[in-house]
């Protein structure tokens, strides 16, 4: 048994130096970001399951459709990847700047640049889908193509929602000002965006690089 | 369980051995718990009260150690059993090969190069058999409980089930994976006969293969077992990759009033020897 007396009921000394018990705990924005991290983890699981499905379909799911080798080339996907990489970099500048009290204009500026590159990425992706589509390589052709469209499409949907989210944040920065709340939202979008980038690297390697080399 | 073949017998004995090995770690609870409940009850119990007692290194070691040892023993058993009873392993030299196609709601058996039958498989006694299994439509599970355990039958895939038949018997095999409106009828006869009878069976008069195929594609359930010529060589392999060869595919879920549903209701009544006039509701 513990020898120390139980200080039951005595008020808790707070590590923050001020002493009150909010329902929301102390470091709210840190907590929100922590929760968002956990959410991203489960999102990552979803991506890995789709990747695993794709890996299986790539082997056994060609049916009467094209193989990855016949379908993919590296040109456009490389440009696409560069666009996303740049956008991640510019987002980094955006959030770092915000941390060091950059002006709202600067923050918004970098965010806009990020979103433009995101849109370029998305545009290329849609263009490629379109190309495949008019060649008759639709998701209905084979298990492999189903898995391909679902995986890349899911990533694309994520990027789309990231872009919409970014646009709304710009509006919120304008209307609500650079409040703590808006800043946390931007930080979360940053996490989200970086995760999408990492996922894309995996997709690029698995689908295009290894597909073309196979 | 009343096993007829060596595989089913092995399954049964594993079950018993396995169960017995668990008793040393489980019986202490089944016996100890009632004893504690009686001995330490507050009103009238005789056990001494030690409210602070909450740890004993010895007990921890026995509990963690004991169950771990039990799992190691069971693990060794599992490893050995699983490998010795692997359904993919031949149970003897030169097994009889039978190719199987499970469909909604009937079974096709092919003795390659010899003959084909629907809803009936005839096997010689005490002989190793290898079933090559595929399906059309839904996933099914091929099971003759008194000979051996089950294995899934899946469209677009091939699985195998090896077993050795036992004495003469008339058995039943069935699909154990629910697959729709006539699931209770999704079964077949298994006749284990003498070698001579088996040879005679293979010589029996039969109908052409084309008849089987057209019929098989068309009907949902099959009236009584029938025999046919064997399909062309390699047909089963092709069908296992392209289930449409054996099945045009209809719905397994039928609206209550669909004509197929009526036929299935009739088939069920037939199976149960219930007069055709009675409606289902009256059957009870």
């Amino acid at each position, binding site marked *: 048994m513990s020898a120390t007396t*139980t200080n039951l009921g005595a008020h808790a000394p707070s590590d923050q130096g001020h002493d009150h018990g909010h329902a929301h705990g102390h470091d709210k924005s840190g907590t929100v970001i922590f929760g968002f991290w956990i959410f991203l983890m489960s999102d990552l699981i979803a991506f890995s399951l789709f990747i695993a499905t794709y890996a299986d379909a790539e082997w056994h799911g060609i049916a009467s459709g094209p193989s990855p080798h016949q379908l993919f080339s590296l040109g456009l996907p490389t440009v696409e990847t560069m666009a996303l990489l740049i956008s991640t970099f510019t987002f980094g500048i955006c959030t770092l700047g915000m941390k060091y009290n950059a002006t709202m204009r600067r923050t918004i500026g970098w965010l806009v640049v990020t979103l433009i590159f995101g849109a370029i990425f998305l545009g290329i992706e849609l263009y490629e889908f379109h190309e495949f589509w008019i060649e008759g390589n639709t998701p209905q052709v084979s298990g492999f193509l189903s898995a391909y469209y679902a995986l890349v499409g899911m990533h694309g949907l994520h990027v789309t929602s990231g872009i919409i989210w970014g646009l709304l944040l710009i509006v919120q920065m304008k209307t609500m000002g650079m409040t703590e709340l808006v800043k946390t939202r931007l930080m979360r979008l940053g996490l989200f965006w970086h995760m999408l980038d990492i996922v894309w690297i995996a997709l690029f390697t698995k689908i295009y690089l290894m597909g073309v080399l196979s | 369980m009343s096993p007829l073949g060596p595989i089913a017998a092995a399954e049964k004995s594993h079950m018993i051995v396995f169960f017995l090995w668990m008793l040393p770690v489980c019986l202490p609870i089944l016996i100890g718990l009632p004893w504690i409940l009686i001995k330490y009850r507050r009103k009238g119990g005789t056990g001494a009260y030690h409210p602070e007692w909450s740890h004993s290194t010895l007990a921890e070691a026995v509990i963690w150690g004991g169950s*771990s040892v039990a799992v190691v023993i069971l693990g060794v058993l599992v490893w050995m059993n699983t490998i010795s009873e692997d359904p993919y392993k031949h149970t003897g030299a030169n097994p009889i090969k039978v190719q199987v196609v499970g469909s909604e709601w009937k079974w096709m058996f092919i003795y390659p190069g010899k003959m084909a039958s629907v809803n009936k498989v005839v096997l010689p006694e005490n002989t190793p058999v290898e079933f090559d299994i595929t399906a059309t439509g839904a996933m099914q599970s091929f099971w003759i409980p008194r000979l051996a355990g089950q294995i899934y039958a899946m469209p677009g895939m091939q699985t195998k089930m090896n077993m050795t038949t036992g004495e003469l018997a008339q058995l039943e095999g069935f699909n154990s994976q629910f697959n729709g409106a006539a699931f209770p009828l999704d079964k077949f006869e298994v006749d284990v006969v003498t070698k001579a009878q088996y040879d005679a069976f293979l010589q029996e008069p039969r109908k052409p293969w084309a008849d089987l195929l057209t019929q098989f594609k068309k009907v949902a359930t099959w009236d009584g077992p029938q025999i046919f010529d064997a399909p062309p060589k390699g047909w089963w392999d092709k069908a296992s990759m392209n289930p449409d060869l054996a099945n045009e595919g209809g719905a397994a879920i039928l609206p209550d009033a669909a004509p197929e549903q009526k036929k299935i209701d009739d088939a069920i009544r037939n199976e149960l020897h219930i007069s055709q006039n009675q409606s289902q509701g009256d059957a009870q």
Partner: protein
Amino acid sequence: MSILGSLKWDDIFIVPFFKEPSLSTGIAAAAGGIVVLGALAVLVLLTVKGWWKPLWTHWITTLDHKKIGVIYIVLAAIMLIRGILEAVVMRAQQVAPAPGFLSVEHHAELFSTHGTIMIFFVAMPLLIGLINVVMPLQIGARDMEFPFMNAISLWLSVGGAALVMASLVVGHFETGGWTAYPPYTGIKLSPNEGVDYWIWSLMLTGIGTTLSGINFAVTIYKQRAPGMTLMKMPIFAWTTLCTAILMIYAMVPLAVASVMLALDRHAGFHFFTATQGGNMMNFANLFWLFGHPEVYILILPAFGVFSHVIPTFSGKKLYGYTSLVWATVAIAVLSFTVWVHHFFTMGQTAHLNAIFGIATMTIGVPTGVKVYNWMLTMWRGKLRFSTAMLFSAGFMFTFVIGGITGVMLANPVISFAAHNSLFLVAHFHNMLIPGLLFGMFAGINYWFPLAFGFRLDETWGRRSFWLWMVGFYLTFMPLYAIGLMGAPRRMAFFTDPAYLPWLLVSMVGALAVLGGLTSQVIQVWVSIKNRESLMVPAGDPWDGRGLEWSLGCPVPEHDFTTIPNITSREPWVEAKERGLRVMEPTEFVDIHLPKNTSMGFLVAMVATVGAFGLIFEMWWLGALCWIAMFVLVLIRSYDTDWEKTVTAEELRADYERHKHVVETTPKVSLDDEFTTKNRGLVFDMEKAV
């Protein structure tokens, strides 16, 4: 495509009966009728009694974790009525002379909805509800970390449940079991909307559950009272943490599998179509990658409950705290490594099967450790047989039997002979009923006063226990027997006369269970009627040991007047040993609580309507609701006025009031624990200082 998508006249519950009257369609029409009449009756009652407003302001818009928890449990109770009625109809169908009174498909719809409802809309809401009510009180938190998200989770689950109920009235539910394997559930073999009901109701509740998991994990991680290190945390909080982690990771494969199934069905994709390069085995893998952890999501909170009920009613410290913690963690980790045991018969190599078989049995070790630890907690104690304690003891005994059959199934060779049989059905009911359900019953009986301020009636509680216990054995032991004789599961009727005696016993058992359930309804009714005499305003009606019992009953909305400082595992026991009867705060400060909001409810209801649209291929409705949800979230994001303040003065007044109650309540001896003398603050007089 019409504006109503694939909706037809025949989908309305009563139409098939008029077109084709039979007992089977009649039962379907009656079931739909009950739902409709029930819903109407509730509406009328609410209007007549004028309860709309209180319902809205106190319940629907609430963000209080205790009330959210209660709503979850009420949801479970409503869904369970359907689940149990279906179970009884199924048992009756199998004893009626073949082919029984239900069509094969109607029977299939019953076991599919029964399984789906019991797992997702009875078991899950029960445990999530209990966690909501109790966990924050145990760790000294004021609420969940994200109260708004908590409300969204709740109403998404309600929405999912509403869809399953709607399937009785409009259209059909799925018929391929709760596991819904394709290709059976593909568009070709299951062309009606049943599978889509399955997909979208699970999608809604699945998202809700994932969010709950995140909420619980973050709350435990960030909101523990100062001084409460992880190894000082109550076991129920530990099991919640592990369950939460399982929820976060395990619901995803289910969502992925059902999205793929939906794409296959409605967009012509080929994830699971064998002829076009799909792989149906991938569905089985994904489903059980969720499904197996799911069964431990179900059981771990129950393990947590037993770890509190048993010490309390043994008057003794929990034996082997550290062991229990590690055993919990081990079970959670191992649960992700065993999923293949659900399809040993799918034709993979013997070595792979053996490895997964052994991995499965390994879970027996930590589970066994737990059972032995509870037994050693009782050993050298002074046992009091409250309803909660009876359920715990009944659980320990029966659960071991289910564990034995589980380990048997983990041997692939045995699984070949028992898979898809009633032996398996007996195994899992053997885990779910005495494990999960008894755990939840014990928890509800034990913690009930925290939420409502009065105890539940013990007499009817004990009656219900005995009926449940006897009923369980009678219902499911025969199924082990005929399972071994080769009776497959999901069979509409049996023709083998050897089964009949066993099936009859089983039917009688199901009626006994129904009696147990009825006793519980009576128990709740009687307790509400006699609530005045069952009140325990001073709190701590069982000589409890955890922090939650230091509060008055019912617990006020702000939970703690001040958050205590924790220095040991059983702070309340030690406080009582030092003669304290109430926490003594040193200073009061203003606190913030989340304000009520209707947004959580609205978002989830819009999602539900949208899901209904998708089920009947009204794509416009799905899209519209998607946009509406988006707009609602946007509106909420502009709302920065989330909190209301409880002032220091109010807290002080509340504290003074509670202190007064406690000081004027006479101490109660353990002898009077179950009598009306118990107004709270029960003490062991033989031990008391």
